[in-house]
């Protein structure tokens, strides 16, 4: 449930679902997001679901905060049997030339790479949200003993396809971008396809994601 609605500037609603990050709260956010989106409420420009917040930005020429707040407060969300989520398998290559930070992680986590990857590949990840850059999925949750901070100095260029970890999350860089996550591998799969206007993202909020280890040879000869 939404705990509180406030204004973010003069053209957005800030819907707060609480401070915690877990699947239950995030599933609530996604349900609100999907229901409001399906309703096509006049004046709404964008909906941004995240771990535990939903930001609704609007066209101030067509509606305003007070009016939209009333609509959202009285909004009945659809009952979804499930979120029509799917399971996606992402092949990644963990060769050291692609797992840019694995050496560092061995030191920080005080373990060897075999253990790190074994742990990573057994997780059924949940997609909390997508964004920052187009199509980037935020996936959780890593085991407690796998959690590390961001790089102190972010990379200016993280290669396309890089798979990174930070805190309880994993992500995938859908195209070359600056970034500070710890890179452990790279996928040859296209995660964001700008030519598909209806569904450009391979992974959407609510989806389950598992990673599969592939060899450098398979990586280089990968054919979608």
């Amino acid at each position: 449930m939404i705990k509180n609605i406030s204004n973010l500037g003069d053209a957005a609603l800030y819907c707060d679902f609480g401070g915690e990050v877990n699947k239950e709260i995030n599933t609530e956010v996604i349900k609100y997001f999907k229901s409001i989106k399906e309703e096509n409420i006049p004046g709404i420009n964008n909906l941004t679901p995240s771990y535990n917040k939903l930001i609704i930005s609007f066209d101030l020429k067509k509606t305003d905060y007070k009016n939209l707040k009333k609509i959202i407060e009285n909004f009945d969300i659809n009952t979804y049997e499930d979120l029509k989520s799917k399971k996606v398998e992402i092949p990644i290559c963990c060769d050291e030339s692609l797992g840019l930070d694995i050496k560092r992680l061995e030191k920080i986590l005080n373990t060897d790479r075999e253990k790190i990857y074994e742990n990573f590949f057994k997780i059924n990840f949940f997609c909390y949200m997508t964004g920052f850059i187009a199509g980037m999925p935020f996936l959780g949750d890593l085991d407690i003993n796998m959690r590390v901070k961001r790089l102190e100095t972010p990379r200016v260029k993280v290669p396309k396809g890089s798979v990174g970890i930070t805190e309880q999350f994993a992500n995938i860089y859908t195209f070359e971008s600056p970034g500070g996550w710890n890179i452990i591998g790279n996928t040859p799969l296209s995660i964001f396809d700008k030519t598909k206007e209806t569904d450009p993202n391979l992974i959407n909020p609510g989806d389950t994601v598992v990673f599969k280890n592939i060899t450098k040879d398979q990586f280089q000869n990968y054919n979608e």
Partner: protein
Amino acid sequence: MNKNYFQIIRGGINTTFQDQGRKNLYHIGIPFSGAMDKRNYLIANKLVGNNFDAPIIEFAYQGPLLKYFGKKINIAISGDVNFKINKNSNEINGKCYQSIVLENGDELDIISTNKSVYGYLAIGAQLKLKYQWSSCSINTKANIGANDGRKLEKNQEIEISKINEHLINKKLDYLNSKIEKIRVIKGTNFDYFSEEGKKIFFEKEFTVSKLSDRMGMRLEGSKIENIVDTNIKSEGLIKGVIQVPADGNPIIMLSDHGTIGGYPKIGVVISADYDKLVQLTPGSKIKFKEVNLTSAENLFRLYELETQNLISQI
């Protein structure tokens, strides 16, 4: 010869096609984009008889040098822009805010913007452009929009599919004014900052950094100290949000911003001040002033009314 087109001789610093931007895509990570200075975008389009959502050429600091080939065509330039038209061997100083007729072989040299960042070139025609999610707006970070999402470069052509039926001759008396006080509403993490930090935010002057582009405007000045946490759980952003990372220097989100961010939000620039904010050049000094939501809404209505008045004078 029925082909009408502009040949790009010099691309300029950051020359892109823009329109009103694209909606309903934040949730997949695609920002709004669109013309940075909406008022000047609308005015330029009206001056050549285009629809209000027509594509326009936006340039920053130094604009393009274009050579025109084809039948007579209207163009107009808005903003505070220094440009020339070379007709045969005559050089004519260009004037902003009026419709101009270009003929076959004319050159349009957009030399620079004066004390501002963005200028606009409207072409009285339909351009041959690729649309993505109902917008041609170029987002060079994600390579989305017309021209494969890349800025315009020399040797390219701007192809015209249909010149507007009537040539027009319009003019507007308008002077861009520079903004010094940016009005803001307190952000959702305002209380993350120390009393001293909050005071600095509203009382001290900030300088616009060179590291500013269509994604964001970085500011430099006294550091704003965070006493709660220098990160928040990542959440949605909108344009105008002012984030303060651990280094204490504010960053204002602009039209091509990342859709999700994890830095505390100290404030949000009001909608009425956005067009003028984006025109602040690196080195400009600015101060923030707090307003409440009702004032912000009223100021926006006033600003919109003023824009409509200007457009109706054309």
